[in-house]
């Protein structure tokens, strides 16, 4: 390679590099940066009489949003509880696959990926049947003698969310458990630590990064979730995603919607960085205490 990269060669190689990067650059600048910048600008505008955007500079969109924060708080509640539930369900499962499954490990992993590759929409619609009056809802109604409705409640939305995002939590946790060095567990046992102490002081710190990655992977799409509440919430559970959809496609109040979108991004940035800060701090503390 040496001695061959003379000036003309270098110029041609620079041209090749820019050609290779050109399409990605176009997409990132024109279809990512530019639209997001327009959204930020629109959020200060007013709704045009026939819908859309009209130039203005006002903070009214943010003002009304602060007066009615319900969809944001509900989204945060659902996203946080959904993430927690995913973590609680994923950990024992990942632990089982990593340590107990033996030869069936491969097939169990493939089985986890299949629902993930099949349509999100179809699986959610299927939950309508399962939770509805011909499924679990009806069964519970017969059992209790009361009319139990699961669809249209927060519970249905939570079930749908956990159902759809669980694999995103399982994989990172599984990967960290897979890397877990068994000899550490044995060493801990030899040093007289009980099962619980070993779990808390050896297993958990090692799995911690996987749980954090998983919870961020789950939390982020949950905050913008729109399909699950639309289908399982029967229009009664209103998350930010649903409000955004209404603002843009029904009432065509683009500036109000833009303000919500900007706020959503800010809320997510703040929550995720705060979460990372807290968990990293906690982790360092634990590492020190281990020494």
């Amino acid at each position, binding site marked *: 390679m040496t001695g061959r990269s003379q000036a003309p060669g270098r110029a041609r*190689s620079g041209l090749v590099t820019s050609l290779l*990067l050109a399409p990605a650059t176009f997409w990132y600048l024109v279809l990512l940066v530019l639209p997001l910048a327009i*959204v930020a600008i629109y959020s200060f505008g007013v709704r045009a009489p026939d819908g859309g955007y009209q130039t203005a500079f006002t903070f009214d969109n943010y003002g009304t949003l602060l007066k009615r924060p319900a969809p944001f708080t509900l989204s945060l509640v659902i996203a946080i509880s959904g993430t927690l539930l995913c973590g609680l369900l994923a950990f024992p499962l990942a632990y089982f696959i990593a340590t107990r499954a033996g030869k069936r490990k491969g097939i169990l992993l493939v089985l986890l990926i299949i629902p993930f590759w099949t349509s999100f929409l179809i699986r959610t619609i299927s939950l309508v*049947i399962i939770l509805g009056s011909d499924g679990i809802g009806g069964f519970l109604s017969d059992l209790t003698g009361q009319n139990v409705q699961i669809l249209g409640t927060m519970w249905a939305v939570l079930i749908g969310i956990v159902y759809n995002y669980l694999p995103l939590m399982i994989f990172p946790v599984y990967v960290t458990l897979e890397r877990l060095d068994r000899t550490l567990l044995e060493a801990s046992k030899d040093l007289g630590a009980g099962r619980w102490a070993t779990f808390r002081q050896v297993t958990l710190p090692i799995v911690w990064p996987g749980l954090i990655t998983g919870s961020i992977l789950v939390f982020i799409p949950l905050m913008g979730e729109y*399909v699950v509440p639309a289908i399982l919430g029967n229009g009664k559970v209103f998350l930010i995603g649903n409000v955004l959809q209404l603002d843009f496609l029904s009432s065509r109040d683009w500036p109000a919607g*833009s303000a919500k979108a900007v706020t959503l991004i800010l809320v997510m940035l703040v929550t995720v960085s705060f979460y990372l800060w807290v968990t990293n701090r906690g982790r360092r503390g634990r590492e020190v205490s281990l020494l």
Partner: protein
Amino acid sequence: MAINKSNRARSSAAGRDRLKSVVEGWFRFHTAAIYVFLFLPIVVVVVFSFNGTDRYLTDWHGLSIKWYQRALSDTQVQRDLWNSVSIGIINAILATAFGTMAALGLQRVPKRLRSFYDALTYVSIIIPEIVIALATLILFAGFQNTANQFFVSITAEGKPFRVGLGQWSIILAHVLFNLSLVLLLVRARLSGMDRTLVDASYDLFATPWRTFRQITFPQLLPAIVAGFLLSFTFSFDDYVISSFVAGVGSQTLPLYIFGQTKQGVTPETNAVAAVMLVVTLTILVGGQFLLSRQSKRTGGGGGATTPIAMVAEQT
């Protein structure tokens, strides 16, 4: 006393064993329950698509394939299926080509420029789909207005040419996300690649193009195929972005299915859903098969070589 002590030790050991077997049993039960939870909806969709009823979905009337016949002869379903497949394929081709190109290009640029692209890649993946959807809608609407005003201004007489949202807008929006996905997959593969082969190829006076074709490309192939498959299934399955930027006549299958649920799910919807399942699963299994055969032939080359392993590795 001594007897008593050893007795207690024995009984506590028995207690521990019992606790252990309870915990083990619970692990097993938990795992099984989650697998049932994950697969039950898929099974339900497929089973009820064969329902012979004429009324509604859960009213079981024996096995029948009539809903498949009805769904597949429905011209709207045919058109939407065609839209979904063509959008998915064009999107996958563009995203795979451009993502791979970008991954190769980023190897050749200074670190600072690379971190700029990295930031954009992560932003495009992390931002909620619905925000991307509404932002692209705003962009396309603005473009459409400007373009149509321009066409009106240059048309002297007759009907001016008009642009509207359509398949192109869905494709442009889908490629953004998928390009980043392919970029990450191919870069992961590139970083795990053996440089010595490339150096050897140059030492043997191969041109850069020939080196790429004969050394780099075959090693990248698993990542490229995985990226292609992921891009296709993402697009084929996407509802959120498509619902914002689809134009008249460019309705896709997920939009059709979502619309059906508003009027109550029928076995026909289930039949369409089952067809979608078969399409994605065929692609997944086919890709897995092709790649594992290919990696056997070329002797692997380290790292994940099948799309399934690739996805698992990425997450």
